[in-house]
């Protein structure tokens, strides 16, 4: 572990390299006006934006962030590539595995199937936003205590689903936990530990 850390600090990490490379292609902000409507009439102030990047403001983990996104961008892409919030994972990219689960106004959604443009003035919470002042959320602690992960790809999504469950229902049954995580796929098969961790976190919060 120590050696690895030294290596990362000295050299360029893979993620740091990708971020740097991304800068050269970051788009300019273009706001279109005067786009043709369906009837061919040029509207004075068309609300049509894009297809080039549009600057939007998004409330993420308690802070208002300004970012330029193409209208085709998903929330997952915006979070990962523009805001470097890479805790949100993209696995299936079709809303089938829920690894990309984030909260929009406290409701879990798939960031991979949400247009970034569609967030509007609603608040996004990602797995990075759960810890308060460096103190992990009880669900995060319980996942560590109960060894509720293997490869870790599904883990941020599992945490966002189970943390939301405990906000809505502080006394969940095993069936409640299963219902809340029905969309979260774990191909390592960590489900039993995820369930135990969630039930344990519920007890601890009380």
């Amino acid at each position, binding site marked *: 572990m120590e050696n690895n850390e030294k290596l990362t600090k000295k050299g360029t990490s893979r993620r740091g390299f990708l971020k740097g490379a991304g800068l050269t292609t970051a788009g300019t902000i273009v706001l279109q006006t005067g786009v043709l409507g369906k009837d061919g009439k040029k509207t004075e102030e068309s609300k049509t*934006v894009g297809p080039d990047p549009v600057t939007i403001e998004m409330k993420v983990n308690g802070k208002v962030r300004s970012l330029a996104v193409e209208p*085709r961008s998903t929330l997952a892409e915006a979070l990962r590539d523009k805001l470097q919030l890479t805790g949100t994972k993209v696995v299936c990219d079709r*809303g089938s595995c829920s690894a990309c689960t984030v909260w929009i106004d406290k*409701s879990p959604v798939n960031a991979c*199937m949400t247009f970034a443009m569609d967030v509007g003035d609603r608040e996004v919470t990602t797995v990075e936003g759960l810890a308060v002042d460096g103190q992990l959320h009880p669900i995060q602690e319980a996942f560590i205590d109960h060894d509720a992960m293997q490869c870790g790809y599904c883990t941020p999504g599992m945490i966002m689903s189970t943390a939301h469950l405990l906000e809505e229902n502080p006394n969940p049954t095993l069936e409640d936990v299963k219902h809340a995580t029905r*969309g979260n796929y774990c191909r390592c098969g960590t489900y039993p530990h995820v369930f135990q961790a969630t039930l344990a976190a519920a007890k601890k919060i009380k």
Partner: protein
Amino acid sequence: MKKISWYNATTLQEAQQEVDATASSLLSGAGKGSAILKSGGIDVLDLMKEGLIAPQKVVNIRNIPGLDKIEYNSKSGLRMGANVTLSSIEKNNDVKTNYKALQLAVAKAATPQLRNMSTIGGNLGQRTRCWYFRSIDHECLRKGGNTCFAKNGENEYHAVINNGTCASVYASSVATALMAYDAIIEIAGENGQKREVPIEEFFVTPYQDVRKENVLKGGEIITALMLPSVNDKIKSHYIKQGARQSYDWALADVAVVAEVSGKKCKDAKVVLGAASPVPMRSKEAESILMRDGINESSAKLAAEAAMEKATPLEKNGYKVAIFKAILQRAIMKTV
């Protein structure tokens, strides 16, 4: 995925002014145009990611005010705005109390995340999940081609009834329950007029027009769904069987709404989802229940009758057995 421009509509008229195509018209190459509507946007984005459609503009109707309410009145029934999410229906107390089959169907649809995003209007408008339809490499009948690849292909999840032209099944399992309640679909036309379409007339079968799954025309927007009021004699149930306990598309799903008094069954609606290209009522099963009342033997007879016309394909014969089992169970759950 190709680039798009974006339009955030705040009124129906504004959206209708901007839009000139539907996902379906882009899919089948019918007509021109390149601006489509999206509400929850999940199916639209999915089709775009697969490269099946490449709209130039997406017109967002999710923020149009007034379309996101659930209203219940014991006389007029239930009215759900088209932008109501599936999870708000799932958690609504009036739905829980009065429309049990709908509540069960919504709670079993998709995943918790998708239920928080998907709207009831979009859920009805989504296209089939047939994997040949969803494959860019297969130009199937529904997309303007001349072959149904499922008929002699991988057809384990396909239709067992009315599968002579196209063997796909309708994607929405919520529609199964809605049909059992005789839902009415309110649609806003481009001329500003609203029309009300009974759900049975909303769907278009492949025999009628294989390129369409519903009657929506370009520029039309679903604005609400209405369910008639219920009395305390009306009992209902819904069962969905997937391949897994967790989230999955239905292998088979059934909804039963019956007016039961004592041993008699005055009225019955039996609907099968994932059996044919559109949700379908089994009038054979309904008439047995109305003739014999609801009991173990009538439930068995009705389940057999519902599958009498089944013409399973090479790999989906097992679905017939599932339909019989879950229909029998659902009927018995109404008493």
